[in-house]
């Protein structure tokens, strides 16, 4: 168990550093477009992944680096994607907002808020129909709870009693607006589970063990045919919404409070509590540091996206021809 927690810690450390690298590369002009960092929310991805089977399905948002990495995408492949390299996860065609690693059950990052919830419902339907025992998980933000697709997805999943988990990463803000100012209930996901007669859990999203437990319990229920669960994980993003946002709208004491509850710090404290020597934790950090450093180098050295790829992959035959 302490061994496992150390693993989780190391995974979170890798994610933290990969995103830090992404941020630095952005500032250096090597990453284009936009990025949405999940720094501060690593425990949700790592805890959930730890509780899932390798063949379970995960659907994430534009803020999805942590999920791609937690599901097994390499930092090098993620950074290469952000840097428009042909070795990127999506060969440079997706970018930061669309990280996908289908062969690891990471079925994509979607940049239209809420859109992937019905997809996860469909993947769960497919798993149930095929009798594979897989579950599907949709991770989404607090802001997504106010869009129609959220409502339709939860309702359909409930009626069909599908093996799907709805995991809300409530980081208190939708872009620059506090979620409380646009939502009439305090817990935007958990407080709404009742509309679909679904069980819900409101959890500490910064505690990787808590997340893992909650997701495992919900996944077990789902696999047992008992239907969906809504999990609302309270967490916080350390940075602004996206790379252009200095996040000045957040009160300093709120930021401070949450930084003190950094999931890496919490895990470190817990490891200490469990008697794991600090040296071991430091070693994990060092391995993470090295891994990400190498990943940056690897991504930088990789060839740029291949212009020929612009006209492939529209159709199953690999091409883009729409007329004869």
């Amino acid at each position, binding site marked *: 168990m302490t061994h496992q927690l150390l693993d989780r810690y190391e995974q979170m450390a890798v994610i933290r550093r990969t995103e830090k690298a992404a941020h630095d590369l952005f500032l250096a002009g090597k990453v284009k477009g936009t990025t949405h960092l999940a720094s501060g929310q690593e425990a949700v991805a790592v805890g959930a992944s730890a509780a899932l089977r390798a063949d379970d*399905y995960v*659907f994430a948002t534009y803020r999805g680096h942590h999920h791609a990495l937690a599901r097994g995408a390499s930092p090098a492949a993620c950074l290469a994607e952000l840097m428009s390299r042909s070795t*990127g*996860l*999506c*060969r*440079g*065609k*997706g970018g930061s907002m*669309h990280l*996908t*690693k*289908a*062969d690891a059950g990471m*079925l*994509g990052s*979607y940049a*239209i808020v809420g*859109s992937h*919830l*019905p*997809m*996860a*419902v*469909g*993947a*769960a*339907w*497919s*798993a149930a*129909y*095929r009798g594979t025992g897989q579950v*599907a998980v949709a991770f989404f933000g607090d802001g997504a709870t106010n869009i*129609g*697709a959220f409502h*339709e*997805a939860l*309702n*359909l999943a409930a*009626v*069909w009693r599908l093996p799907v988990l709805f995991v809300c990463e409530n980081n208190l803000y939708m872009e620059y607006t506090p979620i409380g100012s646009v939502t009439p209930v305090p817990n935007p996901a958990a407080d709404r589970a009742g509309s679909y007669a679904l069980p819900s859990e409101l959890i500490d999203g910064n505690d990787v063990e808590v997340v893992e437990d909650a997701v495992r319990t919900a996944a077990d229920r789902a696999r047992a045919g008992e239907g969906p669960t809504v999990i609302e994980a309270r967490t916080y993003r350390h940075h602004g919404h996206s790379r252009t946002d200095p996040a000045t709208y957040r009160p300093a004491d709120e930021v401070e409070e949450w930084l003190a509850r950094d999931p890496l710090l919490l895990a470190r404290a817990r490891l200490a509590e469990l008697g794991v020597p600090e040296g071991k934790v430091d070693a994990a950090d060092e391995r993470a540091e090295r891994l990400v450093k190498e990943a940056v180098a690897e991504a930088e050295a990789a060839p740029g996206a291949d212009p020929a*790829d612009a006209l*492939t*992959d*529209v*159709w*199953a035959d*690999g091409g*883009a*021809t*729409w*007329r*004869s």
Partner: protein
Amino acid sequence: MAELVTYRESVAEGIAREMRRDRDVVCLGEDIGAAGGVFKTAVGLFDEFGPERVRDTPISEQAIVGAAMGAAMTGLRPVAEIMFSDFLACCWDYLANEIPKVRYMTGGQLGVPLVVRTANGGGLGFGAQHSQAVENWAFTVPGLKVVAPSTPSDVVGLMAAAIRSDDPVVFFEHKGLFAAKGEPAPPDHVLELGRAATVRRGDDVTLVALAWTVPMAMAAAEELAREGISAEVIDLRSLVPLDAAAVLESVGRTSRLVIVEENPYQGGWGATVASIVADEGFESLDAPVRRVAAECVPLPFADALEDVVLPSVDKVTAAVQALAAY
């Protein structure tokens, strides 16, 4: 000669054939179960394949198409019904932004082999929100195959092709054709997507049509024949893939083109066909390219008004006559 069948029956027949062949084919939609669909285009499916494969849904177009997408990404071949094509607007994000883009934006990691089928078109007095022909909406989105059959046999052959396709297909069934009868499809009938049918040979003018406008163009061709004008009629059958070669080849012979489309003129699919011919077929043209399309207004309820708005045999005939005189 086999007994004639309706276009309506052929929808269910086309789906049933594929469901028999492939257990991964599943259906979902509003009232498609025991009720057999509001247009009765799913009759028999529930009885034959049961509630696990023919699923009633809530009124949740986004969940219907979004769930079909998720299922298609993970091994199934869902056939989702959107009751009236107007309601595609309620789940347009999935049609415009999600389904057609996933393969591309993941660098080919994922595919979405599904069919979204929907009752399309006007002429039945259903008013502004239940009468539109919206193949042109789907046509604006790269990554969707867009199919619109005009005969019962084509319904079956194109449905088979659509369901077997590893690409997403939007399948437009025309409300105005449901009661139309035709030869039944032969066994194992599978058409190729993107191959137009030249349903009438002619020398003087090419009429390009789709779905409901095919019988209209045919009727106009009959009438024109009586006046000594020989019209060729092409049923496109699908907009994507678009059989532009068939159109260009025909115009190469006839030198005149009239496109008959049900959607409004502005932004209609015929405009793209016209622009291809005005570019690549420019040399063969002996007269202006003409489009007979709907007026640029919503669809009115009253018959007398709907007739003013929609294309008709008379409008097609008049357009050709004007061109012939050119």
